[in-house]
């Protein structure tokens, strides 16, 4: 291969570029990014960066030494508009194109929006965070639609800035389909303990200058509205490519698409394992998939398959939440240390007598011990 195009310049794309070099690929790498910025890390966008305590420079994924050693050919501020496998070309929004023998699809996704919420903030990109931060001036009332990780983290940061916050959640409790009722209640408690007005089981209808209108006709007064209702995988540019898309780019268990010269990583990759397609929207997943996808790309066939760790973290208020494994809400939950009312605990999800997940609030040491022992994860490679 003389040139690989990595489409998407966030964590998954950067990790793929790093892995290409680490695995001995020494020819050209073109890194295509829709945003004008050099690659940056997203987790702080809802936390320290939004709070104003982290600078844009602190988010950068690659320092000057990395940039020199990786020797990437950056195409920033342009979007990939099409993939033409027969011509081995990626077409770009500026009218140009890149010829590439191998392609890594790392296009992530776009924040979902809600009808009737024109003018609401979303939080996925650096520019989103800059815009939201500039509106978080003293005295504003913030309404957040969605109590998932992003919604909860933004609520937490807004409270740390001293703002009044209402969180509107459609579910009966935050993250209940992921964590189950007991841990969802813990997440709800974190909001309430820190003065956030969390309202669950609420249907929103729209927003205007007065605030958020609910389906029951009531109004939640707000000056700033944030929607945190998930993302849509960015696959529109692959129409006509022949690749199978639909809630992500479909791949085999080794992140290889129907074309051996095209792999997918990160939020956009929908890999098939055990008969079902799975997609993860986590930092760790984006990082862990790169070595597997790149090895298979360089081999020209699937030699390795992806084993997700299911590791997710979230910092909310005074709590660091950590989850590993692939629990279901109907698994049996047992508290290994502490209890749901404590400020620190570790819980294990069990199914058919086996531990399938570990969750911790402010107990990283025990969490990691259990995660390795119970989930039989190999040590970091």
């Amino acid at each position, binding site marked *: 291969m003389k040139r690989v195009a990595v489409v998407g310049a966030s*964590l998954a794309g950067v*990790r793929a570029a790093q892995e290409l070099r680490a695995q001995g690929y020494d020819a050209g790498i073109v890194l295509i990014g829709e945003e004008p910025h050099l690659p940056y*890390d997203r*987790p702080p966008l809802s936390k320290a960066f939004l709070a104003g305590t982290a600078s844009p420079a602190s988010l950068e*994924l690659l*320092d000057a030494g990395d940039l020199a050693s990786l020797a990437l050919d950056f195409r920033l501020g342009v979007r990939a508009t099409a993939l033409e496998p027969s011509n081995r070309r990626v077409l770009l929004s500026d009218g140009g194109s890149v010829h590439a023998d191998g392609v890594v699809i790392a296009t992530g996704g776009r924040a979902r929006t809600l009808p009737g919420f024109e003018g609401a903030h979303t939080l996925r990109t650096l520019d989103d965070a800059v815009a939201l931060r500039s509106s978080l001036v003293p005295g504003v009332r913030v309404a957040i639609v969605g109590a998932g990780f992003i919604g909860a983290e933004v609520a937490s940061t807004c409270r740390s800035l001293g703002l009044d916050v209402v969180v509107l959640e459609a579910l009966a409790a935050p993250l209940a389909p992921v964590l189950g009722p007991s841990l969802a209640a813990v997440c709800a408690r974190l909001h309430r303990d820190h003065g956030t007005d969390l309202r669950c089981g609420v249907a929103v209808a729209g927003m205007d200058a007065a605030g958020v209108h609910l389906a029951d006709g009531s109004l939640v007064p707000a000056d700033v509205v944030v929607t945190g209702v998930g993302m849509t995988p960015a696959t529109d540019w692959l129409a006509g490519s022949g690749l199978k898309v639909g809630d992500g780019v479909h791949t085999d268990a080794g992140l290889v698409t129907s074309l051996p010269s095209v792999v997918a990583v990160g939020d956009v990759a929908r890999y098939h394992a055990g008969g079902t397609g799975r997609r993860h929207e986590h*930092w*760790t997943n984006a*990082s862990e998939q790169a070595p597997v996808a790149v090895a298979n790309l360089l081999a020209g066939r699937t030699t390795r398959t992806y084993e997700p760790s299911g*590791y997710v*973290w979230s910092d909310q208020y005074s709590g*660091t939440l*950590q989850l590993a494994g692939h629990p279901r809400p109907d698994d049996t939950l047992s508290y290994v240390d502490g209890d749901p009312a404590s400020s620190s605990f570790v819980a294990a999800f069990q199914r058919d007598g086996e531990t399938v997940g570990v969750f911790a609030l402010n107990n*990283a*040491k025990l*969490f*990691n011990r259990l995660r*390795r022992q119970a989930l039989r994860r190999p*040590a*970091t490679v």
Partner: protein
Amino acid sequence: MIRACTVDELPPGESVRIPGAPAVAVFHTEAGELYAIDDTCTHQDASLADGWLEGCFVECPLHAALFDLRTGVPTCLPAKEPVRTYPVLVDDGVVYVQGVAGEDAA
């Protein structure tokens, strides 16, 4: 130089956090080597003494940044900045860390 602990208090595979400014973490590897580094991960506030020790690397307990105990240099994201390393001395069964001002570990 500060007293960290006795050798007996730090078996192979274990670590100890010495409070102070900065706090320091001392590790005893399975191979029998002793290393001391700044305890706080350079990525986000987390105690590396709580991390997972594997060979002469420690993994941050929060976000899995991996630090080389010999150099303090992170080998993977999300950490980018190195942690400081300190020479370790053993004298008469007691572990001392050089070049750091701090309280003795309890």
